[in-house]
């Protein structure tokens, strides 16, 4: 093999980069970690605006529509599939039940590196302090 020093160095860099998740996860030791969501407790558990499956996949679309409806059209009432009426408000409706951002929103968002810009404007809820 010619230029074996350079070739081997290059190959080590190549294999290192393409296997970097293995070493990274090994070093962090968090590969088995999963998001651990804390759901609203029994007494303040109300019906959500949609099913859990729908909310898991499409909550961002829903919030985006709500934002546009409220801010641009002034519509504030949302009628769910079950016919119930909700106020279109992140602070009052959503975080009214899911009152701890760190134990609910952040769990999946941090796990997947999602950085939503909700909290650029909205106040972050903290379960103990919230009073409505």
């Amino acid at each position, binding site marked *: 093999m010619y230029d074996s020093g350079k070739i081997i160095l290059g190959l080590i860099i190549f294999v290192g980069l393409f296997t970097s998740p293995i070493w990274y996860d090994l070093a962090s030791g968090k590969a088995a970690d999963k998001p651990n969501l804390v759901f609203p407790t029994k007494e303040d558990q109300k019906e959500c605006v949609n099913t859990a499956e729908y909310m898991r996949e499409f909550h961002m679309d829903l919030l985006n529509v709500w934002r546009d409806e409220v801010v641009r059209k002034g519509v504030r009432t949302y009628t769910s599939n079950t016919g119930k009426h909700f106020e279109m408000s992140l602070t009052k409706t959503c975080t009214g039940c899911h009152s701890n951002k760190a134990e609910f929103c952040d769990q999946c968002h941090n796990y997947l*590196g999602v950085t939503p810009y909700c909290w650029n404007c909205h106040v972050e809820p903290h379960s103990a302090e919230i009073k409505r």
Partner: protein
Amino acid sequence: MNILFSLFAIVIIIVAVTLGVETAKLDFLFGVIIPYAAIATFILGIVLRVIRWARSPVPYHIPTVAGQQKSLKWIKSSKLESPSSTLGVIGRMCLEILLFRSLFRNTKTELKNGPVLAYGSSKYLWLGALAFHWTFFVIVLRHFRYFMEPVPAFVPFLQDLDGFFQVGLPILYASDVIIVAALTFLFLRRVFDSKLRYISLASDYFPLFLILSIAITGILMRYFTRVDIVNVKELALGLFSFHPVIPEGIGVIFYIHLFLVSTLLAYFPFSKLLHMPGIFLSPTRNLANNSRTKRHVNPWEYPVRVHTYEEYEDEFREKMKATGLPLEKELEEK
């Protein structure tokens, strides 16, 4: 024909994985075994290929340059286009790998009415190739949010940059738009240019279709039919930590995406895509243009038995003298 063949291959791949996951419940095969096999093929295949390349000698010093070679002090040399030092070579390689310098020189030759042969600059291939390669790179890097826990800091940085205009929610990534546009251009370029169509093979169309279908399935999952990405990350982390798991309820479109990526990885070491490691081992680019100051010795040169003029004259001196040929060394008088 080549187009249809490649398209058909992609359709077969998609149908196979859909049937395999939906009907035959081969989640473990498509979610664990095939990805592992594909990654192993990719890494091992490239390593072996590079070693095979490194075993073949470079007999001649063949840097292909487009600049003034370093010679006399008062002649200005082109340090990047015609480098004479290692640092210059590194600079030239960076230009080549990061900005596709030589493709920027791409020209087209056309026969115009007259008939006149016209030459002109043609930057569209360079632009399309650069757009495709960079967005693909950014997209691969963004996927590290699935591969690493905790998510490394460069991922949110790239996401913010990529979704700078905050269009829609989930925010539309510029790279998603650009990669589809660039791949479409690179495909149409082969179709509409008759000269290019003539030289295009199935192995030219197949990688284009493959990467395009990977991009489209990814885009579908992000913006349209969602999959449970918490489960997707669990599967990815399982693979990288060698505790493979198949979480319940990941949509079949994810398996299509994964299988297409596996196909790309496994196909890589046997295809034109090898230009990725190959660019580093191109003697026309990675050699310094210093043939005037340093002698390049052919590595497989062996000692050749030569017959010098002195030896020749020694052998034939008397005969040469007899025919009156001039001699360098006269016959010794006896």
